[in-house]
């Protein structure tokens, strides 16, 4: 039986449902100490002095580490993507600062103690003398002349300023004869909030000269590179193990100060050290995302075709750090105008630093703001022209025969059929019968609305000059003498299930059952070098590598089988553990017997012409990535462009502004699907995070740079009650640039809800001139918009 295309349950399911997974918190070694982190209570303050003597004197305290020792003993942490290499500003950042704290929650010292309770308690015995400095907690304020500087050596608060142009947007807008829509789209600050917080442990073996680091990370090999460079020791001295990871969503890409502190201290102290993040710490310092303001002007023709778009993006990326998050602002600019053909386009980006938590990677990685912007532009053009919202999108879409399509940023869109997906989702949500449904609800005093969103989620990110962000990965496939298969991958799974999909690809290639396949991931000592999990790359890149390795073994086994069956290798096929003659399946030999011949009869007549053993390590480099510099400094960074047409039906309480999503549908295109159940599961999760962003989740700071949403009571992620049933249909247009045609589904679903829900809330009140441009659509915001629109009408 073929495995690809089957809804196979996740391979680790039995282990995980029974509570026998191993997460970093479960790693326990003799003599293990606990680390606790002292964090800045101020958004911006000078560290006048740190006195550790009281803490060190406390019973049970083993060590206190400060920035002074970090500066003396370690190197700056290499950034995952240095903005300086893409036209922005660089900064060397170490694990702990010596001079200043630049955001609330920045680590300034760590305490190691015999147990966690003692370590936490000793934090209050570390005496820090602070001198408060002026704070800037808003991006526009940060860009204004005379603003306090987050990084004084830069001279301003602009980490990056970028402009992409095609045609002449300003001239086209001026010539549009007033057919111009304008608006300001605001995306709020977000946090990933995996249910497992960050977690690290490390142990040093002085005799073997080996540092073992257990990290709840998505990227063990790059993390090893970064730890080696920071500690100034060879990579071969370090083993990074990624045990089970309790959710990543991009937030667990390297490198955090705490990762370095744990690794450094284990070696320094000669004792195992463990740190488990408290939830409050995750909110304060785990890395945020998404806070962007996008001001647009769009010119359109009488037929609703958008002829020009001018966008100014201001991103508030928090304080400069080693995190990769800042790059999300670049990606937002890079993805405009998403799925649409606009002849005159100008996109200007200001990436501003502020005294807030630095961004780190988060699912959708800036792409969501670009699609949300374009959804809002399309709906405003629909309002202005009176043309149906779906029709406006259809008229502006890139058409299926126009791929590969080059966008203004240098992005090279690979494939898709946007019109078909949008038409289909309109059917799926029941748009035809909706007006009657809406009228009937009105008669009962209920307000229903239907809205549409269209998301474009490029995947397989590959930037020039980075250790981690590149479009290749490796895999080893081994067939044991008994015919059982082991796959070792450079990609990892933080719970997203790619191990199962990769096993399915390899099982089909080798013709064995899934029960004969085991997948090992996340160990730098056993797995081939690889870049780990991000940008939905694990199946399409890691899976391709595994498939290439499996093809190599298949060819080798066919050579041996052909001798045994006295046919040509080209006559053979394999399935269900048998290699057989095509058209004559009774002439066959078990895979197990072929493996046995290779290993046990290396000089025999069947196997003597092949190299002994059945093991192959292969790498796959994906196509459609172009890094050669061109006139605007543009490059094609994303090989594949999955898309999703989304629709939501909402009910709005006119008196309170409360929005309830009644049903949600998505027609998604990420190419051929290896495991439909896993793909649907990823989409469900993406939609939940998207609806969280559309309606509930918001990281709020006050003017002093103090976080006001430091717990799950304040930062509310959806529960099962808030989530509607989600209807999913897959449309499969293959990417011509990947081995399997797969385009990735890991970040999909997150983006569409923003546009679909805003559009649906507006649609609930067709008589009002609502234009909802800011998420989350919390009750007070919707209530205010309704009152303003009513006042405007009367």
């Amino acid at each position, binding site marked *: 039986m073929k495995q690809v295309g089957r809804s196979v*349950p996740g391979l680790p399911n039995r282990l995980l449902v*029974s509570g026998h997974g191993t997460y970093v918190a479960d790693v326990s070694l003799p003599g293990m100490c606990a680390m606790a982190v002292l964090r800045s209570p101020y958004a911006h303050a000078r560290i006048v002095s740190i006195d550790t003597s009281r803490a060190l004197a406390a019973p049970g305290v083993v060590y206190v580490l400060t920035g002074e020792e970090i500066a003396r003993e370690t190197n700056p942490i290499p950034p995952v993507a240095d903005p300086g290499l893409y036209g922005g500003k660089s900064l060397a950042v170490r694990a702990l600062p010596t001079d200043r704290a630049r955001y609330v929650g920045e680590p300034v010292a760590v305490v190691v103690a015999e147990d966690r309770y003692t370590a936490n308690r000793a934090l209050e015995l570390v005496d820090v003398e602070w001198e408060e400095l002026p704070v800037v907690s808003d991006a526009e304020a940060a860009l204004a002349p005379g603003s306090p500087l987050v990084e004084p050596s830069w001279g301003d608060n602009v980490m990056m300023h970028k402009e992409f142009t095609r045609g002449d947007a300003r001239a086209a807008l001026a010539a549009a004869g007033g057919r111009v829509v304008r608006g300001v789209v605001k995306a709020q600050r977000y946090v990933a909030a995996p*249910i497992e917080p960050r977690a690290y442990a490390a142990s040093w073996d002085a005799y073997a000269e080996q540092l073992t680091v257990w990290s709840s990370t998505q990227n063990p090999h790059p993390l090893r590179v970064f730890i080696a460079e920071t500690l100034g020791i060879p990579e071969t001295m370090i083993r990074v193990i990624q045990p089970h990871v*309790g959710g990543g969503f991009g937030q667990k890409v390297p490198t955090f100060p705490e990762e370095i502190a744990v690794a450094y201290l284990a070696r320094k102290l000669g004792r195992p050290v463990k740190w488990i993040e408290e939830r409050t710490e995750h909110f304060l310092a785990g890395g945020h995302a998404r806070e962007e303001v996008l001001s647009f002007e769009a010119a359109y023709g009488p037929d609703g075709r958008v002829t020009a778009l001018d966008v100014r993006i201001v991103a508030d990326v928090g304080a400069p750090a080693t995190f990769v998050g800042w790059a999300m602002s670049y990606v937002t600019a890079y993805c405009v105008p998403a799925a649409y053909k606009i002849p005159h386009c100008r996109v200007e980006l200001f990436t501003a630093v502020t005294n807030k938590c630095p961004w780190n990677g988060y699912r959708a990685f800036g792409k969501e703001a670009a699609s949300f912007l374009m959804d809002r532009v399309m709906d405003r053009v629909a309002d202005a022209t009176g043309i149906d919202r779906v029709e406006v999108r259809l008229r502006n879409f890139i058409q299926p025969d126009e791929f590969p399509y080059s966008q203004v940023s240098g992005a090279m869109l690979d494939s898709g059929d946007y019109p078909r997906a949008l038409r289909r989702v309109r059917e799926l949500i029941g748009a035809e019968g909706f007006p009657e449904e809406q009228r009937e609800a009105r008669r009962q005093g209920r307000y229903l609305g239907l809205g549409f969103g269209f998301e474009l989620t490029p995947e397989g990110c590959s930037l020039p000059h980075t250790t981690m962000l590149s479009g290749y990965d490796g895999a080893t496939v081994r067939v044991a003498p008994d015919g059982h298969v082991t796959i070792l991958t450079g990609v990892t799974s933080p719970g997203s299930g790619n191990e199962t999909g990769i096993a399915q690809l390899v099982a089909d290639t080798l013709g064995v059952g899934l029960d004969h396949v085991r997948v090992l991931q996340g160990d730098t000592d056993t797995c081939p070098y690889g870049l780990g999990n991000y940008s939905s790359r694990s199946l399409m890149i890691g899976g391709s590598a595994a498939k290439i390795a499996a093809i190599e073994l298949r060819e080798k086994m066919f050579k041996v089988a052909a001798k045994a069956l006295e046919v040509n290798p080209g006559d053979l096929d394999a399935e269900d553990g048998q290699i057989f003659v095509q058209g004559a399946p009774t002439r066959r030999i078990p895979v197990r017997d072929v493996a046995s011949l290779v290993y046990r009869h290396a000089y025999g007549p069947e196997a003597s012409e092949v190299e002994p053993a059945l093991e192959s390590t292969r790498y796959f480099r994906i196509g459609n990535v172009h890094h050669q510099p061109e006139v605007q400094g543009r490059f094609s960074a994303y090989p594949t462009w999955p898309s999703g047409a989304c629709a939501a039906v909402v009910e709005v309480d006119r008196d309170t502004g409360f929005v309830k999503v009644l049903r949600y549908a998505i027609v998604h295109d990420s190419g051929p699907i290896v495991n439909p159940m896993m793909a649907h599961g990823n989409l469900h999760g993406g939609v939940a995070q998207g609806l969280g962003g559309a309606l509930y989740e918001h990281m709020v700071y006050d003017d002093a740079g103090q976080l006001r949403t430091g717990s799950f009571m304040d930062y509310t992620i959806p529960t*099962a009650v808030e989530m509607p049933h989600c209807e999913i249909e897959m449309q499969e247009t293959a990417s011509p640039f990947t081995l399997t045609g797969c385009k990735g589904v890991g970040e999909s679903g997150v983006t569409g809800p923003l546009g679909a829900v805003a559009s649906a809330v507006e649609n609930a009140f067709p008589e009002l001139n609502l234009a909802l441009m800011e998420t989350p659509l919390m009750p007070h915001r919707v209530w205010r918009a309704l009152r303003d629109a009513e006042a405007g009408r009367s």
Partner: protein
Amino acid sequence: MKVPVKVTVNKKPYSVEVDTRMILADMLRDVLRLTGTHIGCGTGSCGACTVMLNGETVKSCSILAADVDGQEVTTIEGVSNGANQLHPVQEAFVQHQGLQCGYCTPGMILSAIQLLKENPNPSESDIRHGIAGNLCRCTGYQFIVESIQAAAKAGVKV
């Protein structure tokens, strides 16, 4: 300060000494080494640490270990009968992919068992409300709901 605690966990009696500040979740994990109970927030908001105390679900991060003296606790490890004999609710989660990363899963399964105990034929809305105290960031809950529906349909004895 330490206090003695006698507690039955997964039908096995334990006599331990715990710090008076210690929470039940830490006692289960660090003292008894039952690491299937996970901690996601420490403030009773996420439900990852859900266990049964005297047959009722509780959030074990919000109960002091010293307070369970003389009582009975069931953790995820006590739900199945070995690796080859999962609880039917666990089996439903396996088959219907009611999990991804697995971190919230033990707590979610205990809440599902509690729900089915009280209401063997829950509606979709009953299920959603029954697990509202357990946050999951991976699945969007849909396959969790379907797993519980499947377990209910199969007439699971809990």
